[in-house]
């Protein structure tokens, strides 16, 4: 295609952007000139695309904008998040709007803390051939293959903590030879860990009771009836827990509880 061989003219380099340099990128094979400082997401928008799919939080945390790209003279297929990856000259790229992955359905309340639960729901976990493609694809640097190994070994705690930063973008799934739905498996592991294995916050029970209790309700009613002047006074004089105070700190004034 003649388009691909064309050199960028000086005029194009500076068109409409003041001093910013424009570079060519190929969106699904079609050439556009975009400022070199933009992320893939902003570059596509600059070119005139308006996203329906493939765009979410725009801050690298929601997993909506998985992108696959290649650089000139490089056989590697690379992946990343469009909102976090800066364009490079002659990049070939496309968004992945959706990638199917098997998700098991379960009644969470009936599950135990046993790894057998995961094996039953996701038997394909044993199809992992330890190629590590998932880990290489992860834009959050989650050690995906290690998580899957931990699941296979029955170590739910390790699987949960290692996978905590997962944003469920699905790039691991897209590269997996064993066809595992890694991010769904991790989700289940974390939920089992959070509710069945990690030590429970027992103090929540007394806090729930205290909030419903008569003493608290009466004090709240009193506050709700106070006028602004009274409220401002109480507010200004409230004791503030010092930033550097330890967990055992207790207030000097007990009456405002």
């Amino acid at each position, binding site marked *: 295609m003649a388009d691909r061989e064309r050199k960028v003219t000086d005029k194009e380099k500076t068109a409409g952007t003041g001093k910013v340099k424009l570079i060519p990128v190929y969106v699904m094979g079609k050439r556009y000139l975009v400022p070199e400082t933009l992320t893939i997401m902003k570059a596509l928008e600059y070119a005139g695309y308006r*996203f*329906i799919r493939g765009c979410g939080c725009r801050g*690298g945390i929601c997993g*909506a904008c998985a992108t696959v790209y290649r650089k000139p003279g490089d056989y590697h297929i690379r992946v990343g998040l469009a909102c976090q990856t800066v364009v490079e000259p002659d990049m070939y790229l496309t968004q992945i709007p959706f990638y199917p992955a098997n998700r098991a*359905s379960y009644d969470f309340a009936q599950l135990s803390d046993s790894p057998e639960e995961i094996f039953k729901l996701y038997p394909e976990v044993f199809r992992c051939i330890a190629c590590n493609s998932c880990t290489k694809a992860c834009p959050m640097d989650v050690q995906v293959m290690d998580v899957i190994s931990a699941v296979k070994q029955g170590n739910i705690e390790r699987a949960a903590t290692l996978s905590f930063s997962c944003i469920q973008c699905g790039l691991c799934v897209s590269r997996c030879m064993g066809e595992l739905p890694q991010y769904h498996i991790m*989700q289940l592991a*974390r939920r089992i860990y*959070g509710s069945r294995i*990690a030590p429970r916050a027992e103090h929540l029970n007394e806090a729930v009771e205290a909030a419903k209790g008569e003493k608290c309700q009466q004090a709240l009613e009193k506050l709700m009836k106070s006028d602004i002047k009274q409220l401002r006074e109480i507010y200004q004089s409230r004791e503030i827990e010092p*930033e550097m105070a330890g967990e055992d700190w207790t207030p000097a004034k007990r009456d405002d509880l």
Partner: protein
Amino acid sequence: MPYTEELKNLIKAVEKTRPQRLARKKQGEEFPRMSLDEVEAILKKYHPDYKEEGRRELKVGPSKGYQIAQEFADLLEAWSRINPDKIDLSRVDIETDVLIIGGGGAGTAAALLAEQNGARVIVATKLRHGDANTMMAEGGIQAATKIEKDSACLHYLDTLGGGHFKNEPELVHTLVTQAPEILRWLEGLGVMFDKFPDGRLHTLLGGGTSRKRMHSCGDITGIEIMRDIRDEARNRENITVLEFAPAIELVLNEHGHCAGAILYNLETEEYSVVKARATILATGGCGRLHIQGFMTTNHYGATADGIVLGYRAGLKLKLLHTVQYHPTGVVYPEQLEGILVTEKFRGAGANLVNIGGEQFVNEREPRDVESAAIIRECLERGKGVPTPTEKLGVWLDSPMIDTLMGEGAVEREFPGKFIVYQRFGIDISKEPMLIYPTLHYQNGGLEYNARGETSVPGLFIAGEVSGGVHGENRLIGNSLLDVLVFGRVAGESAADYAKDKARDGGLSLQHVEDYHRELEKSGIVTDRVTPILLPDYANPEVRERQLTARHAEK
């Protein structure tokens, strides 16, 4: 992009004052807090909400005469996306007990509770299930969980103080008294809160809170909560989620009750009619309106659709004259512009300092005050740090956290932010972050009560689209709490209403026709069509060439 040489030189001033600031912090010395009078003065002078030219009086609708941001007024003084005459309301495409508009935190919590209370639930959401500001909440969730030093009363007081005492007392009462229960519910669903080895929850101070009451899951509290409640919703048989299907108008019936909505398939561009015995509006916030040109932390879909729908259906606006600018949004590197740097950084000990490395505000003032102080430092006092993209910012001195809490603390406590900066060659455990206020939250919204009900029977609301609970300024950690508390409340109320209170009747879009008539009469001349659904970030030169006049009328 890594910091430029110029910025690296400027960082030296921060490094120079850091040992003294650390020493002061260790001794418990703090930068003095402002009195309520000083607060009022600085807000009036520097907070964007108070700028006269930023707002105008509404000429139509139930809150006619109310002064709100130009960007909101533009949305409300606009035509519907549909011609009501062309919608065949006798052909109902989907029928359900409860329709929930919005699949973020509030909508999903509502779905769980409505289903639990026996309702068949449809969740219609504009993007993917979970695509919402909830997902992006970093700092945490407030609840008085440590009764030896904290109580719902103190939480109540902090919330009111932060909101300038304009909050609706009944709503705050519900918020604070249900807070501990919400944490217990989330733990049961598997949310991995930060804990001590004995299970006791970690808590931190936040701006405007008098106790360490912020509970977190690293610095990705929102995503951890959202993905768990979404996972739970996916397991429930009676919850169906329709993605890429925003509602563009509510449907009322002959009794004036809400009876569903018109959905729009973003991909096929079809409209469809959903009939529901009860409807919950949980569409979230407005950051993508870029009020007064501010950058935003918000999700791509935060375009205040629900405000438009609810207003046309007759709901009044409440406290919508204020929006929240989060004090610490990234201003450089450019690629991360606008994104949130959680308040938890300040809670963990990082100072805010100007170009000279000097502190200029206490780090735990409520957000509006903190933002106003940063704007003053940059615009009036000339002590902002210039960025390579010709903007101004101040430093958030994150490396202090490693000294205060031990080497590796920044990476451990803020894994999300650490990696995002690392991608651009900045190590925030060694270099400070350059920040400026960023549009973050819609403090007000549509009017409702503590049962999630509105002035239209059959219509319930929850979350950021609502107004009242946060007064004029929301406190940190109260938004995640809000979506969960009032999402659950609305879900329960709607299921209850659907069971035996809903009255069947012929469907109608008369309210849209009436609204159009009022627009015509008011003399407003515009071709604006709302809700806008998605922002437009095309390069202006491209936009000039996007000349499609309109889709062919069928």
